């Protein structure tokens, strides 16, 4: 009795073993992952991560191939360059003053960032540390404005920045008009400040509201004014938030295309940014795609460095902002 039962059990085991062999690869993988779901998740993670990396990094790879290909052989570029011409990375600076364009971009970026941080700090201090009527609606309006299409502002701003708006006339015939900012850094920095300010205000509000009242009180008793306490105590203690707001603003300004393209005439000495620098490799008779590609790669470098350096602060800044105590 006992022996026969044993035999039957062995047969069943063998039966499933046979079935295992008869299944194809997919079936086996499927049953395996049902038993061990983590395996599936890991596989999915790699698929998603790798496709994400490929889609983001392939353009850079392609740019590199383009840049290395001599201009005569540009007609048929494959996954490998048709030739090897690293000279292009130097030619970009001789053919067009690309370094000046980069300089302009960086200066406008830094200037805007500084302006945004100062104004957003003041606003964040008020929003974060005071109760006042209309606080929430005001905050929402700020955020809404940041999502307005920049094109909506273009025409009035263009007229304003090209000294076409007369504010009032003085007795004696002289008129006071808007300043001539076109072809200058102000024509870009001012609209950028307005557009990118709300995000920074939002970030800094969250951070400043978390600094204990006692610290500010202590700073004021020790001899700071409210502003002094803000810039000497509250701001340093919110360093991750300030860094996040600053880096995000700088990247946004550096990447900006619309106003950068429309607020200058494209000459390097007129504060034109990288956008114009890249476009100036496009001549009337020929377009140096290899130089454009090389310049694009060079233009990415400052941002890449910034992100690598500030990455930790940005991550801690964004998570701390999200996880309010």
């Amino acid at each position: 009795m006992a022996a026969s039962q044993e035999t039957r059990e062995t047969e069943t085991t063998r039966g499933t073993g046979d079935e295992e062999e008869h299944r194809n690869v997919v079936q086996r993988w499927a049953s395996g992952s049902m038993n061990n779901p983590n395996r599936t998740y890991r596989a999915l993670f790699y698929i998603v991560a790798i496709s994400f990396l490929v889609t983001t990094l392939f353009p850079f790879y392609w740019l590199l191939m383009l840049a290395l290909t001599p201009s005569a052989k540009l007609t048929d570029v494959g996954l490998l360059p048709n030739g090897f011409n690293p000279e292009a990375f130097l030619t970009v600076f001789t053919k067009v003053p690309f370094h000046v364009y980069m300089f302009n971009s960086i200066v406008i970026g830094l200037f805007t960032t500084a302006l945004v941080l100062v104004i957003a700090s003041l606003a964040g201090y008020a929003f974060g540390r005071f109760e006042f009527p209309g606080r929430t609606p005001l905050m929402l309006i700020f955020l809404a404005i940041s999502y307005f299409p920049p094109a909506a502002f273009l025409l009035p701003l263009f007229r304003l920045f090209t000294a076409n708006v007369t504010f009032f006339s003085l007795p004696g015939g002289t008129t006071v008009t808007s300043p001539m900012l076109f072809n200058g850094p102000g024509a870009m920095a001012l609209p950028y400040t307005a557009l990118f300010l709300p995000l920074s205000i939002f970030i800094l509000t969250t951070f400043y509201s978390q600094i204990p009242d006692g610290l500010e009180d202590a700073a004021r008793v020790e001899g700071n004014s409210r502003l002094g306490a803000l810039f000497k105590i509250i701001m340093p203690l919110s360093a991750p938030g300030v860094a996040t707001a600053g880096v995000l603003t700088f990247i946004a300004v550096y990447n900006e295309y619309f106003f950068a393209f429309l607020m200058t005439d494209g000459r390097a000495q007129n504060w034109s940014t990288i956008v114009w620098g890249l476009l100036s490799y496009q001549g009337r008779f020929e377009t140096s795609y290899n130089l454009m590609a090389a310049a694009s790669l060079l233009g990415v470098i400052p941002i890449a460095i910034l992100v690598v350096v500030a990455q930790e602060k940005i991550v801690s800044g964004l998570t701390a902002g999200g996880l309010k105590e």
Partner: protein
Amino acid sequence: MGDVTFDDITKKYGEEIAVENLNLDIEDGEFVTLVGPSGCGKSTSLETVAGLTEPTSGRVYIDDEDVTDLPPKNRDIAMVFQNIALFPHMDVYDNISYGLRLRDTDKDEVDRRVDEAAEMVQMEGMLDRMPDEMSGGQQQRVAIARAIVREPEVFLMDEPLANLDAKLRVHMRTQLQQLHKELETTIIYVTHNQEEAMTMSNRIAVMNEGELQQFDAPLTCYYRPTNRFVAGFIGSPSMNFIEGRLTEDGVETDHFTLEIERDLPDTESGQRVTVGVRPEHLTIAEGATFETESGPVGAADASDMDGTPSRPIPVRTDVLEPVGDDIYVYSEFREDTSSVGDDGQTRAVADGGGAAPDGDAGASGNATDSDDRLLMSIPPMPDMDTYEASDQDTEVAMDREMVHLFDAETGEAITHGLTRETDGPNSSQR
């Protein structure tokens, strides 16, 4: 130099009144404590001196100068906060010297004064530590050093010891007193702990619900509380309160009568009053005892009651709490017609006075503030090791010199002591 005057300070938050018509004159070099339960307005009052809160009305004067509209930095004050509030991104040296450096003090001068202040709070040699590398007590000492380094006219301290553990708190208490002696600067100290207030201050300002109740020396607040709130708040354990009414020659409650041998102006017979007596002014009546497992407890030390004892009051013991140098005896009044007198009359008083005591009990908010329970503090018996003594009948006596009467309606004190007037209650303190 550093005298501080509150001139009719009122602070409202919307409809909520935090401080109402506060008038205080604090003299130079005085250690004054603002004490009261949570939400009594003591911190708000302190913040009006610091300039961190603007009073709704009234003026604040420091050194006879109207500082009401000055920002904190121009008031020549320093403050120690309950949550310590050291700047977390600066080391000890930078924290202590922050105020000096803001005032462009000479570098050598800064070094000298920081060293001096650090030495005073015994934190020398730790100047390069960061705040998060130190214990709470060390942090609080740095905060105190930060306050004294600027040599201000007035120190403001907002519950500086509240976040420290009990042992450290007592230690820091003596340190602060030492410091006050050395510096001779005015200190305004806020606490909800009446013991801190009693031990440290020259004068105590007792506050409740935004109003000043009494502003006097600690022992005056203890022996001559102006009203029932102060009486219940100052002293630990809290005073016993028993509702009763005045008679022709004394005071009568549900449970006992007391003779009054002095004239009480502005009172009338039959007026409802509250009898207040501190646990330490109650003893076991002469000849009475109660049994514990380790032997009888009686009025062993007759010298303990050197005042004028009242007639014995019958009670039944409930719980004994040994706290070391004292034993707290909780007991209940026991019906004993022989010592109360006419039973019918007592009943009537009980019914008539029943409503008011409940209303008043909430205001002072003390655990022992019950009509039927009596807390007595007696010296411990030698060789006593168990304290089980529930449901024992015995009799207690009050020191009539130390019995307070309060108006049952207003809570105002009517008299301190029921015996014939002497030079003052302080002459009879133990």
